[in-house]
């Protein structure tokens, strides 16, 4: 499989009063035209990894890596100005809560058109038409009305679909989705995931899906990286997730309550300090 | 505790008693404040102000009220008068030093009256809601509508001129914004889960307002008061300038500017020196307020 993204030895550090805190510690992985899941709990460094790829971490946070190669080109070495051409155009990001990622004082149409015109020299009319097309692609039934509406008038599921439309309109190569369905109701989650899946497949994109929900990721992705304490502790094929061997992954799987396997007590994860000291497993294909 | 330095004890993640926990929280707040250089400058200015005011009899080279008509309007650096003398031959430096006491007096009085009144009115209004809220807010609006100088004039006409009346006038017009801030904060806090939780323990309104809402409102009020102090000092100076505040021969800085106004072209230092003093103290309060906001802002602490 062709490698769209290749990351070697990524470190993300934050200076604090008690010393330097390493949020991500030497993570290496690659992404092809596939759906890659990154699973971990809070503090595992999964969100930081996503943000580091897009260079969204501001000082005093520090991002270091041997390289972050997008199509062979090291984007870590780019200037901020050049990065702006990468963000949105070549790598896009969908975040958790559309309430906080959509601008509340602009209409949805204005925002999508803005996102489109930032990366292409289209006229307003062209941009409008493209936006309508994009909204239809995410199964929004009344795109004209939605274009004129404000974000707060939209439900969570619709807001997230609008985010996806906005992020995919410049036709990026890679989409990073950071907990895209965590703020949504169960019945809406499936719908949003199906749309994301279809669009990613149609466009031949790579998808990085960051989540804390093991079962969701196992269902939805092709390959899964499990992160703990800033490192990758296990890599496996998504359909083989339930046969995972690392004690942390097994611990997470066993601590979930299950309707089909009732237990009196849930297994409590016992954290072994050896897990965070072991070297990061390579997530390369 | 013997093998742990004091600093480590204060920075601990596991306090061992109430006192330990409070001291630790204070120390960490101090460290945050200290890292802000400009805020430390502000604090330094104000500490200096307090020290000068306290040590006025020792520091002051001359008696601030002694006139020497033979030596009026002496320039800066004259013998025995570092900052020169005013129109009646009084040493400007000494008058500035004693004037610091008056400035501090104004600051303390207003800081005691206005924010306290505002906190009371605002929190009660915000928590009680309904008619109480409506009535209290209308009263606040009425006081907000009073122009400060006109009120001061009215007080002077009714009660006679003097620094206390000027301070009263300033306080009466300064408290409404604090009431508004306190009310806005209360409205936000009121709907949070921790207030719901304490209501579920049967806590009464008084306990909720004093023990739960006040600690959260006080931070933003302190910040707002320090930032307003500059304006208050200037307001008092303005009243003094108009002759409505401190009366002669009191060395209030605003009154000194007023007296020096006539000589501003040829003997500029008579008005400028007290002006610089007011500027410096106002700046000090502004810087301090900025620094305090960084420390006390609950969002920054989360």
């Amino acid at each position, binding site marked *: 499989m062709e490698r769209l993204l290749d990351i070697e030895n990524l470190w993300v550090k934050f200076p604090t009063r008690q010393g330097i805190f390493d949020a991500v510690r030497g993570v290496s992985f690659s992404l092809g035209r596939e759906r890659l899941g990154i699973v971990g*709990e*809070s503090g595992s460094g999964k969100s930081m990894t996503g943000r580091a790829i897009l260079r969204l971490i501001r000082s005093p946070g520090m991002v270091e890596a041997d390289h972050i190669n997008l199509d062979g080109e090291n984007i870590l070495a780019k200037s901020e100005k050049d990065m702006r051409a990468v963000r949105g155009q070549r790598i896009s990001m969908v975040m958790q809560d559309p309430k906080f990622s959509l601008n509340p004082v602009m209409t949805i149409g204005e925002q999508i058109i803005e996102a489109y015109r930032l990366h292409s020299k289209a006229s307003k009319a062209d941009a409008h038409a493209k936006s309508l097309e994009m909204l239809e692609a995410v199964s929004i039934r009344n795109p004209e009305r939605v274009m004129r509406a404000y974000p707060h008038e939209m439900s*969570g599921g619709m807001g997230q679909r609008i985010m996806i439309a906005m992020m995919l309109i410049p036709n990026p190569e890679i989409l990073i989705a950071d907990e895209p369905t965590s703020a949504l*109701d*169960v*019945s809406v*989650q*499936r719908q949003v995931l199906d749309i994301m899946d279809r669009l990613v497949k149609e466009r031949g994109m790579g998808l990085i899906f960051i989540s*804390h929900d*093991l079962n969701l990721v196992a269902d939805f992705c092709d390959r899964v990286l499990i992160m703990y304490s800033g490192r990758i502790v296990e890599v496996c094929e998504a359909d083989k997730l339930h046969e995972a061997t690392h004690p942390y992954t097994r*611990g*997470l799987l066993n*601590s*979930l*309550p*299950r*309707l*089909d396997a*009732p*237990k*009196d*007590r*849930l*297994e*409590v*994860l016992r954290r072994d300090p050896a897990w965070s000291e072991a070297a990061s497993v390579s997530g390369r294909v | 505790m013997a093998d742990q330095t004091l600093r480590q004890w204060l920075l601990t*993640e*596991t*306090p*061992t*008693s*109430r006192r*330990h*926990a409070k001291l630790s*929280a204070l120390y960490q707040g101090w460290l945050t404040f200290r890292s802000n250089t400009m805020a430390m400058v502000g604090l330094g200015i104000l500490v200096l102000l307090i020290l000068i005011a306290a040590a006025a009899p020792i520091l002051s080279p001359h008696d601030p009220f002694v006139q020497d008509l033979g030596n009026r309007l002496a320039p800066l650096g004259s013998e025995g008068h570092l900052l020169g003398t005013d129109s009646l031959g009084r040493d400007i430096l000494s008058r500035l030093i004693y004037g610091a006491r008056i400035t501090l007096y104004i600051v303390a009085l207003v800081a005691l009256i206005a924010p306290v009144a505002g906190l009371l009115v605002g929190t009660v209004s915000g928590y009680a809601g309904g008619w109480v809220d409506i009535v209290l807010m209308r009263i606040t609006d009425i006081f907000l509508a009073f122009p400060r100088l006109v009120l001061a004039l009215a007080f002077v006409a009714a009660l006679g001129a003097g620094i206390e009346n000027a301070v009263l006038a300033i306080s009466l017009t300064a408290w409404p914004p604090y009431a508004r801030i306190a009310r806005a904060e209360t409205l936000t806090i009121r709907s*949070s*889960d*921790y207030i*719901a*939780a*304490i*209501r*579920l*323990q*049967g*806590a009464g309104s008084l*306990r909720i307002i004093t*023990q*739960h809402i006040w*600690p*959260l409102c006080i931070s933003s009020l302190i910040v707002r008061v320090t930032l307003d102090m500059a304006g208050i000092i200037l307001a008092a100076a303005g009243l003094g300038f108009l002759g409505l505040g401190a009366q002669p021969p009191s060395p209030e800085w605003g009154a000194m500017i007023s007296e020096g106004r006539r000589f501003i072209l040829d003997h500029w230092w008579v008005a400028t020196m007290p002006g610089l003093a007011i500027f410096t103290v106002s700046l000090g309060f502004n810087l301090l307020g900025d620094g305090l906001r960084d420390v006390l802002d*609950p969002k920054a*602490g*989360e």
Partner: protein
Amino acid sequence: MNMLEIEGLNVWFGTARDRVDAVKAASFSVAQGQSFGLVGESGSGKSTILRAITGLAPTWSGKITVAGQPVLAKRSKSFFKTVQMVFQDPYASLHPRHSVDQVLGETLYLHGFKDIDARVVKLLDDVGLGQKFRFRYPHQLSGGQRQRVAIARALAPEPTLLLLDEPTSALDVSVQAEILNLLVDLRQEHHLTYLMVSHDLSVVGHMCDSLAVMKDGEIVEIMDVAALRRMEATHPYAQHLLQASV
């Protein structure tokens, strides 16, 4: 005896044209010692029922009976000794300026206990926290630790009915397991009755004996957990919810 009985409960916000009916004609009962779940999506009204029981929702009509006593418009002190609540967001349910000791101490004081120190120590032990945490402030605690403090606070007045509003939905998976185990243990030790709201059917399947499914403010089905496990719901919406959760 039934610990809790809800008959024809309506809860609404606003008046006349702006009126929003959050709960419509809800009826169910919870036997003593039982654990009852309320499931539904956001906006279904499940959390609103809890708030109506505790008196945090202003306008309601219908009948609420707790431990045989009908609940009146104003809750009495003895009501709060019987019914307590654990809130959803551990980051919002503790006062940011009060230490753990203050939170528990104040609760005990308000309920008239005299041996406050000893009880604080015991409560912290009961929820698995221990003395190290006694004088910490909330920002020095993790999500799971904060939720344990919230549970300790709810247990302080020695209630018999505990209302749990999505107690683990804001927590990590591994922490959730610890808190759920703790809740199961506490229920056994203190003979508590639970009314638990959750959007996660597998959590409800683990914790509860029976449950009610809510949609748009109405209870569409009441079933027991065995039926839940067999995926046998009678109402189409309940069946749809079960399918989506697997």
